[in-house]
């Protein structure tokens, strides 16, 4: 991909992440949650990561947020490897630029503080207002609440989290991202706990933030239809591997990896029938370890050959913005 997509903000290069799966220090069995994952996130562009639970979607977001360090590989933010960011001042700067939105809007706000506190705190910590100037702080908080559609702002600010609905709470979380002027928003299933009628509003707000504030959005989800709505790029993950990525519509309409085909054939859609045949599925999801070999999907794939079981496929570029990791395309 070239610079035609705008300014490159975050780039992942061959990221590997291993986790210990046993507390027994002698055995030390490892599980590979992310294997050779590369991606690029651009300004004012959304990248959706889809896949089943346990496929390593959240691990990627948590590594970008510096909650985990990659075992190997690099995450580059504006030209700098984020592992080299260690000084407090630099870390603050990084956290200002890269913010997260969590799945559970009920757990991510402190129940003992009102909404004003939740918005004012990041403003104070990141020195977005003159310290001690109460009036400026208030105005800023109300302005932010207004921007995310929580009006009347003054009344909302006085409320506590339990007085808001799930959708309103998620709007508070998004207001916090805007407050610090985040350039990259990592949203981990931000709408999966919201009702459909509320979900649309939150999706539209994120869409607005993406375009008007030129944010780069990482949208983690298992709902491919909303991914299509909000993200220009789509990455499909399977057992810690990115198996196919590129232009969202291209992948949804012409999936090339057998796993993507299976996934898309399973997505509920009103125009489909319940009898829609699943595009091939057998076997169980494997546990990937550092010693595992071959294609992770080989055990379930209808087209698998002996080569698929022994050899990890290389990345193949099918179009300008369409990549796949599958022996069928070599």
């Amino acid at each position: 991909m070239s610079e035609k997509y705008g300014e490159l903000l975050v780039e992942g290069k061959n990221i590997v992440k291993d986790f210990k799966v046993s507390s027994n220090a002698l055995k030390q069995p490892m599980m590979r949650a992310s294997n050779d994952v590369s991606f690029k996130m651009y300004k004012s562009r959304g990248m959706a990561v889809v896949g089943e639970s346990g496929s390593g979607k959240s691990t990627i977001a948590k590594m970008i947020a510096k909650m985990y360090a990659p075992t190997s590989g690099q995450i580059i933010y504006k030209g700098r490897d984020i592992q080299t960011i260690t000084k407090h001042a630099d870390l603050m700067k990084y956290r200002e630029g890269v913010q997260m939105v969590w799945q559970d809007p009920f757990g991510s706000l402190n129940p003992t503080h009102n909404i004003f506190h939740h918005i004012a705190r990041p403003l104070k910590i990141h020195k977005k207002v003159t310290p001690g100037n109460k009036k400026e702080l208030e105005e800023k908080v109300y302005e932010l609440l207004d921007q995310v559609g929580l009006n009347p702002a003054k009344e909302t600010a006085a409320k506590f989290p339990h007085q808001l609905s799930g959708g309103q709470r998620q709007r508070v979380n998004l207001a916090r991202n805007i407050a610090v002027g985040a350039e990259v928003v990592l949203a981990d299933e931000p709408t999966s706990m919201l009702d459909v009628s509320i979900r649309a509003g939150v999706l539209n707000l994120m869409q607005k933030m993406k375009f008007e504030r030129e944010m780069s959005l990482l949208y983690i989800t298992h709902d491919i239809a909303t991914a299509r709505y909000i993200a220009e790029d789509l990455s499909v993950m399977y057992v810690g591997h990115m198996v196919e990525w590129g232009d969202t519509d291209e992948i949804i309409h012409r999936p090339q990896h057998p796993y993507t085909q299976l996934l898309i054939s399973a997505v509920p859609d009103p125009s489909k029938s319940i009898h829609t045949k699943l595009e091939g599925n057998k076997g169980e999801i494997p546990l990937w370890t550092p010693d595992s070999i071959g294609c992770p999907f080989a055990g379930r794939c209808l087209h698998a050959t002996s080569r698929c079981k022994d050899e990890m496929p290389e990345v193949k570029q099918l179009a300008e913005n369409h990549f796949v990791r599958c022996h069928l395309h070599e």
Partner: protein
Amino acid sequence: MTIPQISIRNLCVDYITEAGDVRAVNNVSFDIGKGEVFGLAGESGCGKSTIAFALMRLHKPPAFISGGEVLFADDEGKQQDILQLSDGEMTIFRWSQMSMVFQSAMNALNPVIPIVDQFTDVIMRHTNKTKYEAVKRAEQLLQIVDIHPNRLTDYPHQFSGGMRQRLVIAIALALNPKLIIMDEPTTALDVVVQREILQKIYALKEEFGFSILFITHDLSLMVEFSDRIGIMYSGQLIEVASAKEILKNPYHPYTHGLSNSFPSLTGPKKELIGIPGNPLNLLDIPTGCRFQARCTRVEEVCRTKENPLRDIENGHMSNCHLAVAGESIGIAEVTTA
């Protein structure tokens, strides 16, 4: 006309709370035919699960059924009101006639008991079968849901999420019920597993001929799986129609709003409109239509007159005052570049 498997008539369920009494289910009436899949959709807190619990008579104070009838057709085709059954009769009725797959079925299994005992417990509680017969039946049931019978002695944690879901469905099938209530049966599962399970349920329904009350908040899935769908809003049933009709030709603005709230996987990209405002607080119910505060078409009559569910055309029912036969709201043609 054949009598439906179950007829719910004017069902009301109240919760007594410190802030006042709340009518969580208000005058709800619908039928489910033999072998039919009836979907019940709506936002959280609209009363879907409360209805499911009321049909099984599982409510405990502070919730109680305050009115209505639930007529269930027995083998001879006679209808009996299950709300009038004594506790002893209800124990016999429950599971043998009507069973339930609970929400978060993954957690519905007891983690410290091998699954064989969880099968035999149900079977022996509701029938006179011996332990040996019950184990034999459990083996059959496992085969029905494609799990090898030699896994009967395993514990729930030894199964994957999808297998646990199938186990719970197998337990629901144990006594060949005529109606199975499925309350969000696949919500915690991945899409691939979800589709496998639903296809399995459908095949079992075809084989054994039971009816299903299917509850979910995933409308796309519901349209695929159900024959008819009822949409609920703040304790009331506001629209009932066939699955094919309901999103295409809705008569209620809420249903119309829902159909514009979720993106589609294929076809042109539409802008999602959503529904402004928030669900109704059941402690503060306005006069007239309950949807008036969020409705874009609201008129004077909506604020003053009650709006019972009525037949608009050919069994397509809606409680909207403004609904006129042949003039459904349709899907808004808003497209984005």
